[in-house]
Structures are given as C-alpha cells and as structure tokens.
C-alpha cells in the first residue's frame, strides 16, 4: 500500500497542440493508469488547480487565454510544459503563428515533460515529481 502525502489538481490548456498530447493526457484517467490513486486529477476550472498543464507551441491566438488562465490559478502554482511543442522543441516552433513553446511565449515552466507525445506512464512519473517537490521551485508571483 502506498501513502499519498499530497494531492495535485491539474488544469489542462491546449495552446496549439495536434491533439496527440490531449489523447495521452486523457489516457491517464483510464483504469490502466488511474491517476486518481495518486491524488492527481484533472479539474474543470483554473481556480481549482494547483498546476497548469500546457500543450502545443503557444499559438498567437492562445497567448492571451494562456496568460489569463495562469492568472486565475491560485498560488502556490506550477506551470507544466507537456510535450515537445510546449517544451519548445516541436516541429512547428518556427511557424508564423507559433510562439515557439511555453518558455519563449510566456515564462519558464516548472516542469517540462518531453515527448511527441509523451507516453502516459512517463507522464505519471514526471507529474508526481511535483508532489514530492523534486523539481525547481516556482518563481514567486510579483
């Protein structure tokens, strides 16, 4: 039996993904991964979230919604770049309507999960680092 110290609520935001990352994030809710057993869940509102999970290279049209969603997440909060596009190393980084990933478009993420798309088992392992504090601390909000 494992002991669950902290829960972590995730809010997802698609900023120009190809839908591959979304599919693999959804897979975490299936019985094969059952993310809820680790105190992880996907929530409907940024107000309920501890972390914002961003997919896609941040298209220009999603830049402003990304900022607004992040501002709606209460502190302390974590920013996660999910997949190669969000990490700034995807194939559409240079496209004219793309801002080249979360770090280039917005701010440095607390956690980067590479992969195109990342595999669910790996995502689970990486996301759990946020629960154990094994990642660089989030910069304080001004």
């Amino acid at each position: 039996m494992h002991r669950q110290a902290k829960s972590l609520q995730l809010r997802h935001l698609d900023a120009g993904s190809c839908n591959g990352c979304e599919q693999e994030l959804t897979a975490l809710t299936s019985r094969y991964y059952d993310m809820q057993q680790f105190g992880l869940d996907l929530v409907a509102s940024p107000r309920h979230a501890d972390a914002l999970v961003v997919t896609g290279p941040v298209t220009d049209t999603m830049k402003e919604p990304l900022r607004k969603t992040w501002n709606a997440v209460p502190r302390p909060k974590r920013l996660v770049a999910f997949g190669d596009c969000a990490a700034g190393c995807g194939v559409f980084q240079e496209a004219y309507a793309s801002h080249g990933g979360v770090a280039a478009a917005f701010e440095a993420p607390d956690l980067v999960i590479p992969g195109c798309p990342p595999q669910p088992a790996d995502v689970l392992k990486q996301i759990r680092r946020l629960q154990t504090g094994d990642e660089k601390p989030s910069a304080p909000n001004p």
Partner: protein
Amino acid sequence: MKSIAVETIESDQWLTRNELLKQAGAQLLALTAFRGNRLEIHWLLPDGNVTAGALNWNGSGFPSLSPYLPEVAWDEREIHDLFGYVPKGHPDLRPLIRTPRWPAGFYPLNDDSRLRPIWVDMEPDNPAKTVEGDGVTIMKVGPTHAGVIESGHFVFSIMGENILHLDLHLFQNHRGVEKSLEGLSTEEVPPLVTRICGADTVSHQTNWAMAVEQLAGHQAPETRCWERIVLLESERVLSHLNDLAQIPAGVGFQVAHQRALAMKEQWQRGLLTLFGHRLLFDTVRPGWSAKGDSDSFLALVRAMMRDWHPWRSMVEGHHGFHDRMNGVGLVRRDDAERFGAVGVAARATGLAFDARTLMPLYQNVSVKPVTGGAGDVAARFKVRLQEVEDSWRILQAALDHLREASDGPPWTPPQDLAGETVSYSESPHGLNVHVVALEEGRIRRYHVRPATFRNWPLVALATAGNAVGDFPLINKSFELCYSCSDR
C-alpha cells in the same frame, strides 16, 4: 513526372462548371489558392477520376462560389484571410482564421517572407453573429474548456435551455502549417505532415507519400499497399474507439466510457509494440511504411474482440443510453449533401460516400460504406460500431496478404521532383485531401483540406434547436479534431 491536368476556366464559366459537377454527384476535394491570383479546384468524380479547373484573374478578386455552393464558404473565407484575395459576392466575409491581432497587410501565404509578424496588442476575439431579441441570452464558451480537449470558442444564442444559433470561432490552434511546409525538401516534409493532426496522422502521412509517388510515376509494390492499409485501418480503429469512449462520457455513462477507454489503451499498447508509436506517428513516407509482425497483430485483433463483443452488447442493449442519443443533434441528409459533409457524419445521414471505395490503394479490398439512417448522435455512434468491426475484417485480410508478400526494391523520390498533384484518403473523420506542388524537389505550395474542416459547419447546424446541455454530447458525436482544421 505525372502532374494532374488542370484546365483553365474563364471567370464567367467558373460558377456554372462547378455547379454542374456538384449536380453530377462529384465530391469536392479542395479549393486551393496560389500566389499570383490563381485558384484551383479539384473534384472527385463518381467513377473515381479527378478533374481539376483553374481560375486566373486580374485585379482584386474572383467570383465567389459560396452563394451557390455553400460548402466552399469557409474555404473562400480562409483564402481571403491568408492570401488577401476577395471572393466577390460572398455572403459572410468575416475573418475565419485572422484575428484583430494580425497586422494589416499580413497575408502569410501570399508572401515569400518567412518572418513572424509583429502582432497587434489586442484581444484575439472576432465579432460574433448572434440572435437579437427579448429573452435571448448570449453564452460564450471557450476557447479554453473544462475538460481535456482542444481549444475552440463557441458563441451560443440561447433562449431558456434552447439553442437558437451557434457561431463557431475556431482556429485557435492555427500554427501556420501550410507555410511551414513551403520550401522544404521531400525528406524534410514527413515529420511535419505527421503532426498536422494526432488523430488522423496516418491518413495525412499516406496522402503525402501517395502525392510524391504519383508525381514520380512510382507504383508502390503490393506489400507497401497492404502495409498502408493495415496502418490506415489501425488508425480508424484507434480513433473510433476514442470516439466510442467519449460519446458515453457525454451522457455520464461511465462504465461504457471506461471500458472503451481501456480497449483504446490496449490497442495503443499493441501499436507501440508493433510499429513503435502509440498514435502511429512517422509510420508512412514516400517509398516506405512501417511493418509489424502479422501473427502478433492477428493475436491482438483476436484479443480485442474478446473485450469488444460484450461491450458492444452492453451499449446496444442500454435503453437509457439510446434515449439520450436518439433524435439529438440531427443532420438532415439534404443538408449533409449541400454542405459536402464527409465521413461518419455524412454516412450517418444515409449518404453512401466512403473514399476507400474509390481509392486505388483499396482496389483489392471490398469496402461497403456503412450508412446509419437518422443523422442523429445515435446514428453516428452506430456507424462507428460497425466500422470498427469492418476495419478488423479488413485488417485480418491485409495481414494474411502481408505474411506472404515480399518486399519490393527500396525506392526514394528523385531529388528534382516537380509538378502538381492531389491525393486523398478516408481518414477516421472522412475525406482528407492534400494538394501538393513541388519545384526542384522542394514544396512550392502545400494545401491540406481535412475532413473536419468540411464538417464543422454541420456541427453548428446540428446544434441549433437542441438543449444547451446536449452540446457536449453533440460535439463528441462528431468528435472533430480542431488541429487538422486549424492547421
């Protein structure tokens, strides 16, 4: 090198010629704009031949086809946004992809420059079309959503619980894919084409491979054809299992949702073992496709069926589930025809169009389009149920062929490949079309017309008249990916 013959059409003939083709039962493949005031239109004739026409003009615009062929209304708006060409007489020329943040005069596809524009510091929202009157409420949803789905903005005009009108504001995922492909060599194209869409990726990859092989006059060996059929059908099963899991989720039928999601996971794990990728990225390119072991794959299909049949009996026998789906999100057959609907959404209204019946790749496979009848959520659900089983049947036959077939000699496209062609396939969401123009082995123009783009206007049509609470269910029953459409 085998380009498709394109006939130049005079502007006073542009409308009549295209209207006649539509009346003759031809299916629109794509309306494509080129630099230098040029449009090309490709139609797929009922006998499987492709006919292409081109329009050139001087001055600011071209005659709009939209008042007579409403299915190109979005295509012409896109051309207006990305090229700056004006479709004269278009009934609704609001921006489709452009936002108020795009600088004036920035027409990315009509320009050789690869620089990013200097975006205007404004909100990205475009004006919405709404219903006005006493008691009408405007409800805006998105672009971010409560679940794990792609971004899209929906403006509902509602009265009480009833939806009067839905105005779609999509293209939040517009990256600039077509422009990114320009100038690339044939080796550089596949990683990008693979990632146009995570749900229809094999179909996109196959279109690119077929386009190059057509232009080079290369006939893919039989093995390659069976490999591609295996990959395309594997993708159909994957995507349909996803949609069949999401529709029950839309009405809170968790058991059906979770069991279907588990089947999808089992399928993905099999695909990872067989082809090295859970979503089949990077599995097809010109002259090559990924090959899995036939016996292991057949064992996987048999294992899937053991879970599938009890699940199918459960969902088909659940009256409450069917009560929630019947009569909801109706698409009338004549609307589907008028708007050039494709894929499951079209077949669920009774239209018997499945591009596989015309694709040369499938000439040795018998495909019978699954038609559903009522055009509601229930029909779209049922069409997918049957198509999954048909795909497994096709897979079993293809895998048997592959066991005996030997590999042809390796082939790579010539470095100086040039010309223009169109390729199409039946993606899980329907007819998916690529128009490709190459010059000295590099992309001069690449136009992608995915199935979802054609079907989105139908979602709006199917939504009006329903309860607002049913929108997620209606949307899931189409399950159109945004990224294909937005590019």
